[in-house]
């Protein structure tokens, strides 16, 4: 099961990841981080398919994607 880890204090609240997620499981928080931004968060980890489009769109490298599954490299991103 893939897991998306967002570092709240790296996030600048740009919302690019929200738009990128094909599963629409990303949203913005109601609390601000230490820099004063409303940061991104995952609303439902169970529906993550590990596509990594959120991390690919993030300008601040705030997102790490991990998985327990065996990974077959179907394409080199």
């Amino acid at each position, binding site marked *: 099961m*893939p*897991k998306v880890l967002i570092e709240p*204090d*790296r996030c*600048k*609240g*740009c*919302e*690019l990841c929200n*738009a*990128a997620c094909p599963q629409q499981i990303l949203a913005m928080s109601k609390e601000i981080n230490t820099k004063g*931004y409303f940061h991104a968060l995952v609303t439902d980890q169970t529906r993550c398919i*590990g596509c*990594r*489009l959120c*991390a*690919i*769109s*993030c*300008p*601040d*490298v705030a*997102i*790490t*994607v*991990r*998985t*327990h599954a065996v*990974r077959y490299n179907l394409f*080199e*991103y």
Partner: protein
Amino acid sequence: MTATTIFGTPASLTDRITHYCPGCTHGIIHRLVAESLDELGLRETTVGIAPVGCAVLAYHYFACDFQEAAHGRAPALATGTKRARPDLTVFTYQGDGDLASIGTAELIHAANRGEKITIIFVNNAIYGMTGGQMAPTTMPGQVTSTSPAGRDVELAGYPLRVAELVATLRTPSFVERVSVHSPRHIINAKRAVRQAFEYQKEGRCFSLVEVLSTCPTNWGLTPLEALKWLEENMLPYYPLGVKKSPDDEV
């Protein structure tokens, strides 16, 4: 079973949180360059050359040796470094003012001499760092702080299409224009950036990757609105694609 990371911070990027605005595509493009250096094993033999512009502090975000050039002169510095040490991978990272305005001569001549360097050109149709003035790449009618009534092509001419300009030179080179306004485009941009560094690793030719980018702050839009603005206004004028390949006939 332990978890594997299938997306993490590239080694060629430092941990430092960038000073770029929220949603600024500089962060994405920095990461694409860093991933390419990692994948090609070039980090420890790379020298980057920072511009004058928002990316003037790029040297804080890359884990490789760096020089800071005067405005527009990065291709000349890169020429000096590459000619002194042809074994090093040398790249410049420049914006609209640096590359398409004050540094156009240095760009054209480095390309024409076929210096085996890689130039990443971030085109966001505006001067970001100095607060949103008109750039040679600003779209007709686009409002900026020095074109408050919108760019008037009678006064300022049409925007410069740098990729096409460089592609007309006879010396073999790799020139491609890409965009980073959607995940699909980012993945394609990564391919182009990596290809550019591969050509340098092979010692093959000069490479220029023009990356259409957003500037939410100076465009006066939210990051998501800015992506849309790029798609609707810049894509038609700045067509994406490979403009020149070293495999082309000379």
